């Protein structure tokens, strides 16, 4: 029932996990496995450590778990297969115990009360195997089929094809309830709510769009956690993406030493390398997953504040090599002399989110429908046309804007807006963004070490050109943005973005 390619790799992981306690120095084993459902090869010990760290935070912190595969047809007992994993450490699966078909019996109606069903399964397993499970994973046969076909193609997929397929698989399984986890982890609920915002849009389409716009790059993020450190190397060359996880054999003390970064950069021929603490990243992500989607504005403010605080904590919470030019004291001093205070260490993390959200709310309103058009001026083409619905400052719905008449090679924002306004019940603004502008922004983010005020100035100047960014009708904020020169705009915005004092 389960794809061989997946099963072999899974058994290899189980074998490694069960051996880890009996081997003296498991970290010295040079064994590689694939991350399940991906073609990415990873050091088995690193995967063990990452699972130990991540699984309890994101999925479930309790021991012992049962996997149940259910039939898609309404039969007396829906259970096709069931497995029991005794996990002394949450998430570390060692041995799969195949349960007899009569141990668990599930009828279609049982799925309506999952809490009761869980208790029933828990009691049955205690009775049969003497093990108390603390969570269950229910896979409908359709989910297994989808996973199998995904795994079958893994060998021939390029990285991008694999990513698109994985995103489609996740979206389909979660949206259609093909996978049920009980107790439901926050990440699962978060994804479910997130996918419901994306209505009829495939997430993979958005991933592909932004990925295709990215320039070639080769960067790495060096993560250090309690007793493991590794580098995640991301690369894109001529539209081929690559992700690699390399376990660094360094002592934790050395991990924090900045002198390692140039060495790793040189060895792997990287453009830049960032070092950060994995626990901080995990705790930030788990805070995001705890949120109810659509995220309320006050919660969004808090998350943005934390993100910006992280961004401003350069040299304390994260390091980068080569050091970003924007942090160069001499450059900053010279810019200060001509009136631009651009010290990112004093980024106003506490002010920006609240102020920006208040301005956004007053400009677009508390219930607004905005059509977002992503154009490609070079090909005279629309890359993507979306309708965004904001309510109380939160994005609550994204749908496809399928209006062939309005988008018929017509790039005039006003005309498009008028055509859409005629046919739609509610439309407040039409925003047109060209891919060239997005490319510039992506380039700026990916080459952060090279970002300077001149690059920001260039992006601002580009954004002021209606060919690259246009909004119809004008909101006061957009009118101000257009009417001010890029330099005076920077002078107006920098005192808001950067603090004068440390608070």
């Amino acid at each position, binding site marked *: 029932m389960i794809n061989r390619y997946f099963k072999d790799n899974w058994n290899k992981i189980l074998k490694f996990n069960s051996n880890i306690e009996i081997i003296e120095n498991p970290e010295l084993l040079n064994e590689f496995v694939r991350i399940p459902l991906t073609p990415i090869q990873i050091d088995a010990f690193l995967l063990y450590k990452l699972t130990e760290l991540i699984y309890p935070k994101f999925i479930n912190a309790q021991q012992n778990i049962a996997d149940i595969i259910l039939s898609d047809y309404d039969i007396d007992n829906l259970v096709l297969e069931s497995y029991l994993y005794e996990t002394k450490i949450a998430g570390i699966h060692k041995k799969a115990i195949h349960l007899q078909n009569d141990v668990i019996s599930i009828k279609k109606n049982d799925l309506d009360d999952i809490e009761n069903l869980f208790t029933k399964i828990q009691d049955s397993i205690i009775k049969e195997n003497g093990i108390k499970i603390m969570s269950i994973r229910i896979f409908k046969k359709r989910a297994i089929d989808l996973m199998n076909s995904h795994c079958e193609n893994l060998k021939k997929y390029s990285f991008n094809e694999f990513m698109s397929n994985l995103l489609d698989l996740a979206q389909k399984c979660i949206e259609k309830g093909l996978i049920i986890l009980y107790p439901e982890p926050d990440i699962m609920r978060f994804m479910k709510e997130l996918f419901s915002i994306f209505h009829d849009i495939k997430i993979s389409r958005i991933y592909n769009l932004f990925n295709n716009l990215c320039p070639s790059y080769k960067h790495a993020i060096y993560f250090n956690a309690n007793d493991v450190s590794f580098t995640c190397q991301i690369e894109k060359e001529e539209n081929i993406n690559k992700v690699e996880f390399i376990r660094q054999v360094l002592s934790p003390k050395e991990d924090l030493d900045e002198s390692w970064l140039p060495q790793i950069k040189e060895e792997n021929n990287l453009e830049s390398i960032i070092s950060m603490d994995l626990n901080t990243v995990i705790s930030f992500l788990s805070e995001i997953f705890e949120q109810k989607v659509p995220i309320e504005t006050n919660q969004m403010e808090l998350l943005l504040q934390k993100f910006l605080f992280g961004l401003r904590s350069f040299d304390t919470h994260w390091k980068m090599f080569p050091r970003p030019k924007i942090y160069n004291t001499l450059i900053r001093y010279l810019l200060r002399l001509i009136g631009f205070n651009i010290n990112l260490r004093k980024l*106003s993390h506490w*002010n920006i989110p*609240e*102020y920006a959200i*208040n*301005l956004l*709310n*007053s*400009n*677009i*309103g*508390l*219930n*607004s429908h905005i059509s977002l058009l992503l154009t490609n001026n070079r090909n005279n083409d629309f890359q993507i046309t979306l309708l965004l619905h904001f*309510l*109380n400052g939160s994005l609550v719905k994204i749908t496809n804007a399928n209006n062939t008449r309005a988008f018929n090679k017509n790039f005039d924002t*006003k005309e498009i807006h*008028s055509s859409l*306004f*005629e046919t739609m*019940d*509610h439309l*407040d603004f039409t925003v047109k963004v060209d891919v060239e502008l997005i490319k510039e922004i992506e380039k700026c983010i990916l080459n952060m070490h090279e970002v300077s005020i001149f690059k920001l100035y260039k992006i601002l100047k580009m954004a002021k050109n209606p060919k690259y960014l246009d909004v*119809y*009708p*004008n*909101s*006061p*904020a957009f*009118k*101000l943005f257009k*009417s*001010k020169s890029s330099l005076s705009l920077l002078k*107006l*915005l920098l*005192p*808001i973005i950067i*603090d*004068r004092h440390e*608070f």
Partner: protein
Amino acid sequence: MSQLEKDIVNVAIAKRDNPLNTYNEILTNLGGIGKFVSENDKIFIKVNINSPEGFPVNTSFALIKSMIKSCKKAGASNIFLGSYSSKGVKIRNIDNLLEINESINPLGAQLLFLDEDSEFELLDILQNCDKFFVVNQVNVDPLFDYTLSMMNSFDINNLNFNDPMKQNLENDFYKKNFVSKLLNLFEKRKPDLILNDLYYLMEGAGPYIYSDSKLIKTDLMVGGNDAVAVDFITLKLLDNDPLENPLIISARERNIGTTDLNNINIIGVDLETSIIHINYCKKNLEEIKIHNCDIKTGSTCSGCYHMAYHLLNTVKTYMTKDLKYIAGQSFLIGKNPPEPEIKKNVILFGNCAINSTKNYGFNTLITSKESIPLLDKIKSIFNRKKPNKIQITKKRKNKQVLQIPGCPPTFNSSIKLISDYHGKQQVPNLLLYRNLMETYTLTDIKKVKKEGV
């Protein structure tokens, strides 16, 4: 038809899954649009276009669009839309930004710039149109609790107080004049169809969008042909006693409209089971909690209260960083407000506050220090005695006081004065807000002659 039947007015309440279905149900309950629009009618629709902010500060354009379409379908020849703005923004400037005319012209409607006309010109428009409709967005309001349909017909900024003698607390002309002018207008031309849109309603702070504002979904709309009755039922729906509302009280006194529930025939959703509870605006200005700000109020006229409410909420919403930089300021509002706790950055809002605090302690700064007069110092050298120190007290005028004159002061001038007083280094957030404000307040207004009604 008996006299009793004549006195009964119909008010429709609808509750549906989306605003347009709710609007259609209101029309159906009232007998269809054909009952209100005849062939070749010239229709004037009064809407809320208050400032170039989004919904719900302005009436929902989806609703306006639907109403224009249904009027056209029923045979209307000309449809005109009109509104007064607020915060000193001209409708023409709002139109320049939001391109309202560009959107509604293809539908066969035109936006008029009522704020460029006199009150008489409005009357002229109203009396010359065949039908007068009001589409009103209901939000919380500091002065009248809610923005009711009756308020929609007049511009609160048009109240001019040229006679300083009239500006006193006892008479409180601001609110009274507003109510009286509104009802005068109503007596001359009553609207034929009134729609109170509370499908989405702003609570907490309003009717503009502030940090404390929140949009709630009630799924409800109220409509009818008697504005007083429609507002009466709307207030009832919002769990507010209509007979405590100054507009309803005045209408009742002047016998305008129906203010007796027994004479109102409710069609559609049941009133009692549909009542909703809303978070009102903060009634007491001192309750508006602003970081590093001390708010002191004395006896405040409704005009100053109204403007101060908006100013304080703007400060709270758009001065987050500035308030940290300023590190302390006091707003004194109304007649005889209490003395501020700190003497720096004292903002006197309105003529009452300026005039009644002339003798307050914060106006003068007293500095004292111990010093030895020069003669005593010289003497002490010869006497070899320790000279006596004397206490020298100096009084000087406190320069950290900002006066915002007017009764009430205008919103735009208040923002300018505060931003100039603190200087751009101190208030970067307010500076950006001021720049944004200037995008729609500084445009040259060329009065264009209207056509049509």
